[in-house]
């Protein structure tokens, strides 16, 4: 099997003597250009999805600006200098999550926000999207690899603790994202296949047990969750309408601002979680494929960066962050097209909202920082 390092063009570029502008800025031009293209495309769709609201587009541009600045800032940080703070940050994050459960604020029955006087209100779960892979990478980088069973168990505890706290808020989307990001690190640390297979079998065997232990109304919720169309007035409504939007878009789409599903208010959440349905309705199959291609290029670039990294911590972290980005895309598009159950996961860098944009760009900044320092053993 070929080697990712050989595929990496940077290996040859390091022969150049003078560091260019990109190197000085510690930025990766490939990734940056791709992100800017996705964001611009996203703004075009958002204008339609928000009902031609210039205010929404302007607000989102400001958020993108902030997110880009955050990325630029994080790219300047040398991961090796922050490593020793990671356990402290993790403990602090857990405390914040507990605080959310005890006196957080929120809407629609979910308690997700923390209001601390003097600070803007924020979601501690967003911070954990970065802290959890950082912590697991830090822990496993200090162990022998492939990790032994005890190390795998400790890592799983590190992952499950925040995941359960967030699932209790409840915020299923975020806990899925965080859970997978942690598991990816363990996977890239060289988790033995037999553990992986054993975990899958154990999980599958445990499901009937959990199912039989549940009460009737809980079972009903799970059924609705897995098959939303059994509840066409509630959760099913969104999925039925978004499938109509996607399907009626056809190959070429109905044209920008011409989507009837989104503009006649049939489609819910057109700015946020269901924005890909707006894209599919107005730009058709071609539009969605274009966006998926852009995402695919981002992912390939992320994997190349991971493959070129030398230190275990850098590799595990960059590979995990890349795959987490992928999970966003998979869960969101899968949900909107009716393949996966409805959990609240935004479409990366396209959905309206500042928090997820900043979190994503910060993790991409980490990727860039790792990329810029892969040859500098300081």
């Amino acid at each position, binding site marked *: *099997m070929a080697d*990712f390092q050989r595929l990496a063009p940077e290996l040859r570029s390091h022969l150049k003597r003078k560091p260019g502008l990109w190197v000085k800025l510690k930025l990766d031009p490939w990734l940056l250009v791709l992100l800017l293209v996705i964001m611009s495309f996203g703004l075009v769709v958002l204008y339609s999805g928000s009902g031609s609201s210039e205010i929404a587009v302007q607000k989102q541009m400001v958020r993108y600006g902030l997110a880009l600045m955050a990325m630029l800032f994080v790219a300047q940080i040398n991961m090796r200098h922050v490593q020793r703070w990671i356990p402290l940050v993790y403990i602090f994050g857990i405390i914040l999550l507990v605080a959310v459960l005890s006196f957080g604020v929120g809407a629609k029955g979910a308690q997700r926000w923390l209001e601390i006087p003097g600070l803007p209100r924020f979601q501690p779960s967003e911070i954990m999207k970065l802290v959890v892979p950082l912590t697991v990478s830090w822990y496993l980088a200090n162990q022998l690899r492939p990790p032994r069973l005890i190390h795998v168990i400790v890592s799983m505890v590190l992952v499950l603790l925040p995941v359960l706290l967030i699932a209790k808020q409840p915020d299923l989307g975020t806990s899925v994202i965080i859970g997978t990001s942690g598991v990816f690190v363990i996977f*890239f640390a060289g988790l033995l296949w037999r553990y992986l297979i054993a975990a899958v079998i154990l999980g599958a065997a445990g499901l009937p047990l959990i199912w039989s232990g549940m009460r009737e109304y809980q079972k009903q919720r799970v059924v609705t969750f897995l098959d939303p169309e059994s509840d066409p007035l509630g959760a099913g409504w969104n999925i039925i309408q978004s499938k109509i939007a996607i399907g*009626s878009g056809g*190959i070429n789409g109905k044209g920008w601002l011409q989507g009837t599903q989104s503009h006649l208010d*049939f489609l819910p959440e057109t700015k946020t979680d269901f924005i890909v349905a707006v894209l599919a309705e107005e730009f058709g199959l071609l539009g969605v494929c274009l966006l998926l291609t852009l995402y695919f290029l981002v992912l390939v670039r992320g994997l190349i960066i991971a493959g070129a990294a030398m230190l275990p911590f850098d590799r595990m972290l960059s590979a995990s962050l890349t795959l987490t980005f992928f999970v966003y895309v998979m869960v969101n598009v899968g949900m909107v097209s009716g*393949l996966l159950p409805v959990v609240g996961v935004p479409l990366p860098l396209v959905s309206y909202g500042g928090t997820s944009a900043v979190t994503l760009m910060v993790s991409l900044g980490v990727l860039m920082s790792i990329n810029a320092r892969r040859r500098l053993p300081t």
Partner: protein
Amino acid sequence: MSWSNLDAQRREDSQFQTRLWWSLWFIIIVFVGLVCRLVYLQVWQHQHYVTASDDNRQQLQALAPTRGLIYDTHGSLLAGNRASHSLTLVPEQLSGGRRSIDKVLAELGQILTLDDSDIKRFKRRLNQPRRPYSPVALRFQLSQAEIAQITVNQHRFSGVRIVPELVRYYPLDDGFVHALGYVGRINDRELKNLDATNYSATHHVGKLGIERYYETELHGTVGYQTVETNARGRVLEVLDRLEPLPGRDITLFLDAQLQQDAAQLLEGKRGAIVAIDPKTGGILAMASAPSYGANQFVTGISNANYDALRTSNDLPLFNRALRGRYPPASTVKPVIALAGIDSGIISRKFSLWDPGYYQLTEGGRFYRDWKEGGHGRVNMHKSIVESVDTFYYAIADVMGNTPMTKYLSQFGLGQVTIADQPEATKAVLPTKKWKRANRNASWFPGDSLNLGIGQGFLSATPTQLATMAMVLANKGQWHQVRMIKAIDGQAVKKVSEIGHKDPQQPDNIELKRDSDWNKVHAALIDVMHGKYGTGRRSGADSSYKMAGKTGTAQVLGIKQDSTYDAEKLAERFRDHGLYIGWAPAKDPVIVVAVIIENRGGGSSAAAPLARKLFDSYILGTKIEPESEPEATAIVEVDLEAEAEVENTQGAINDG
């Protein structure tokens, strides 16, 4: 670094690279899968979804479940459903679209009456979040003539429809509302708390009483249908249908005949009657007067009518049976007597000489008995039969706060023990802690004397007094006091059996000597049948024996509520009459509590009503409407603030 380490390093490197490739392949597979799904939806199924989206002819309609029925104990219908027609608009289907709404409203106004409040409420409903193509109600309760008018003109209005729906109907109405509650249109606040899916076709929700408490059971589960309609919204074909699940039927212990009797007896008065079946704890009757009709609330009461109810001095909206807080007066004497004997503070043979007053200290304040000159030598039996205040001043003085409040609480005072009437209040059982918290003062001996004769800070609702009488009649045996007898024909002994929370209920009372119950019972029978009993006139000439206790609460001061005219003022200083009792005395089938406001003492105002109720329930005697002067007097309970009655200390208390 040793060679083996280097080797391990190389192995780790190559493994990591392999896993990156695995990830890449996985990503590719998922992306291909997503694209396949999109191709399936956007190419393969394209035509199907174009149809679905383009003409929007397929609509999902929610189907309201039929609300469960409420029956009395013998199966008479107390709350049913009847058809009502309302006029609705689908704004998206109006010929000129949403913008033409005002024009359409003006045209509709020419063929039927639409007043400003109809239009105002319609606009409010229109601006609430709603699904496209869902109808918005404009008018309810269309008359036959109006239905005909609209049908004839139907061709002029697309998107305007007459929708039949089932709405609540109370066939017996007046006199039942304080027992049953009622349903009304869902308002904005309720909308936020209801399950949006299950109520998507429902317009009414239980607002009060049984209808509110058993809302979950009575409502049922929503159904839906997918229909194909033409451009005007007329249903052409039903494509898919899931029937709604009707609500569950509830049978109450309430006896419709007895309830009507109780309402009849209270006609023209202010007061309440609560009757309980002592063998089950089931409420047989719960009447509060004055009352009002519930049906007008179902279809929307006019502002004028509602204001009249709300501002009436007699407070018809106020549920006296559950929320009226009255001094129980002498009706607590049997319990105080039991407390004295059972706690060992007085002996069973204890007696005293009653000079007609009691003094805490020599030369101190006089606490007077209702009978000037006193009753002579008084033992426990005589103290109950003749309701001797002095006897209770004396034993309350010795007992102090604690044994009295402890025993009163075992009989249910100071707490809500009725399970399924959410409006019930716990009134006041004044413990030392209560007085410290609410009056910021410590407990004085004078407070004990007032408590001993059921006055002072003590207050109780008619429901609580009936419950106390039930426990007395049962010799300490408790049952959950409740309205519900059965649901869907299945008996309910406790509301927790159907998923509700049981109220806290005292344990069954075990006296140190069981025969003490018989002593108190014997005295209570003599109240009704003895030569000097305070209720002897009501107990006379009966074919069965009954037991009971009268009470008279004197209202000496009232927290100001200055809307009353001066000439009526005198009336509200008249006594409240109270009565608790049961019949037949030895094997009770009915326990009642009667409270009549401002019409004099219990033996003349309350006990005769109880006797009539007993006769009706046991012998089936018909109750004749009595001709009495109109009640104009005033209530001491304020609906909003529940301002408390301030009875001056040392209230006089007779039988």
